[in-house]
């Protein structure tokens, strides 16, 4: 599903990033396919704030709708 559709507080896995600068920027920070993230906050009509490791990243709504994620149906990750 799209990151912009994620629920606040949900645990997710990154599936795919849109090609281009964002993909390269993401890789450097560790935002790669398979990376575990947590959706911290979704501003109505606005950015999605996610937690990658212990780094908070704000992603604009349009960009979030181009990032594919998968819900993590397993146990809670080790809280970092």
């Amino acid at each position, binding site marked *: 599903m799209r990151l912009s559709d994620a629920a606040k507080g949900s645990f997710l896995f990154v599936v795919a990033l849109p090609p281009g600068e964002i993909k*390269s920027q993401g890789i450097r920070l560790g935002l790669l396919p398979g990376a575990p993230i947590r959706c911290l906050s979704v*501003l*109505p009509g606005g950015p999605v704030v996610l937690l990658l490791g212990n780094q908070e*990243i*704000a992603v*604009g709504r*349009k960009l979030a709708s181009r990032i594919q994620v998968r819900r993590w149906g397993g146990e809670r990750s080790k*809280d*970092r």
Partner: protein
Amino acid sequence: MNISVKEKAGVGHECKAAPRKLALAGNPNVGKSVVFQALTGMYAEVSNYPGTTVDVTTGSFGPFTLIDTPGVFSLSGFNDEEQVTLSAVTDCDCILNVVDGTHLERDLFLTLQLLSLGKPMLVAVNLMDQVEKNRIRLDLSGLSAALGVEIFPVSAKKGTGIKALRSALSADSLRTPARGRSRGEAPGISDDGASARTRLEADRLAERFVRYSGQKTVFSQKLGRAVLNPVLGVPLMAGLLCLIFLFIGKFLSQTVVDFTEGYLMSECYYNFIFGLISRILDPDSFAGVLLIGEYGVLTMVPIYLLGLLLPLIVGFYLCLALLEDSGLLPRIAVLCDRLFTRFGLNGKAVIPMLLGFGCVTMALITTRILGTKRERLIATVLLCIAVPCSAQFAIIMAVASILPPFYFFIYGGSILMLFFLLGSLLARFLPGSSSDLFLVLPPLRLPGAKNVLRKTAMKSKHFLRDAGPMFLAGSLLISTLTYTGGFAAIHQALIPLTEGFLKLPGETAALFLMSIIKRDLGAACLYSMVSQDLLSFPQMTVALTVITLFVPCFASVAILFKEQGPLAAAAIWLGSFAAAFLLGGLLAAWLV
């Protein structure tokens, strides 16, 4: 641009070794500048790196010339900051990599890239006080062995570890290059595959040497997330901004300026300088008018610069530094993102917009942080037309506070409406693409007093240094016009515009002329007209609207020329001229 160390000549006389260039590099918000400051003391010089407008700070420490670079996440030259940092680290002799101890796995990416340059290098792990507070355990000796560099734990804010770092930076240190790493992305190449490998290596190192001992979410993290909660965040942010506007618009512009300008400068200093000079020159002579006349070089210039502008500028940059260092500014950008996308911008544009209330000229330069040319142009147009700067902003607040609420809302509403209209039109019709918000959020921190004061002092100093010459030029021009009666002629000539179209007294022509040179001069003139009761409320509203929208000052025009080209500069100048008078005329027809 390599500075070579001169060898001792065999003939028996010693050559003094040229200072070696030590570049500080690291991610944004790791406290690089604080470390730089701790090493170099107060002496630091901000210079423009040739070819760009990104600033590089240089200072000296012992046998080294220190070069502070902009914070970057990698060296692949994607944007201006990365290119500048890349040049600085390839040019230099040795590197000091400052990393954030609380985000080590993130920072190690850049560390690995820097190591692959094969230069002598040291790593300083900053924010160790936060590391302790968050109960993170770092095995720095293990990491040091694995990387092949010396690592120094430091808390630049508290001052711990700095001594050890200083002694490590001696004349004999940093001679041997760090163990070169053949793996890892070679800097300057944005190859995703290499990036991924470097990222993996950084993660593996973090796994071995960083332990998060089951910490729960720390209070500052909870607060940071609460701020971003839409229900709580928006009123909080609005409240904060109101507080700042009130601080500058009410407390500073009235209470403080009443003292500094009204008393200290306008009375004490004025009496002193007038008394002094009038003993040598006739005050009514040309020289007298130039020096101590109403717009004199020795009267108006220092009185306004030091009495009026300085307290306002210092207050403004103080607030800005507090917002930056606390981590609130990027969160404000997140909260504003939705609004800004309506204008073809993203949340990051809040930074130049806020800066514009201090000085539009400086804000224009900051538009460089925006992602695409289209965004830079939109932000530039909005800044030039609708954002009032420094003293103009404070004086507007002061005048507006005299206005009854009805007129105040008409003024505020007109400006906001124009802003929205203009932004939306530009977003609709300008070709090109805009970038989306992608912002790494620093944790909320209590700002360090020393760093805040240092930033405020430096920015205020630059403001005065840049504003001074224009003030001087304005003063000379206006004094000459006053003396030669040129002003009276201009007033007469512009009566159809001022009295006819805008329904304002003829003297306001002087106000507009001065606004062309320096916007705050025009605002100050308005303030004195208001305090002399020369304007009715509707007239005040019209005048306020016109000077807010009025043309960008000379300094801004110069930047416009450089950044956007002569065509855009002319279009913006004429556009704001037209907008100011048209809207003013409209309001005059309705209200006066």
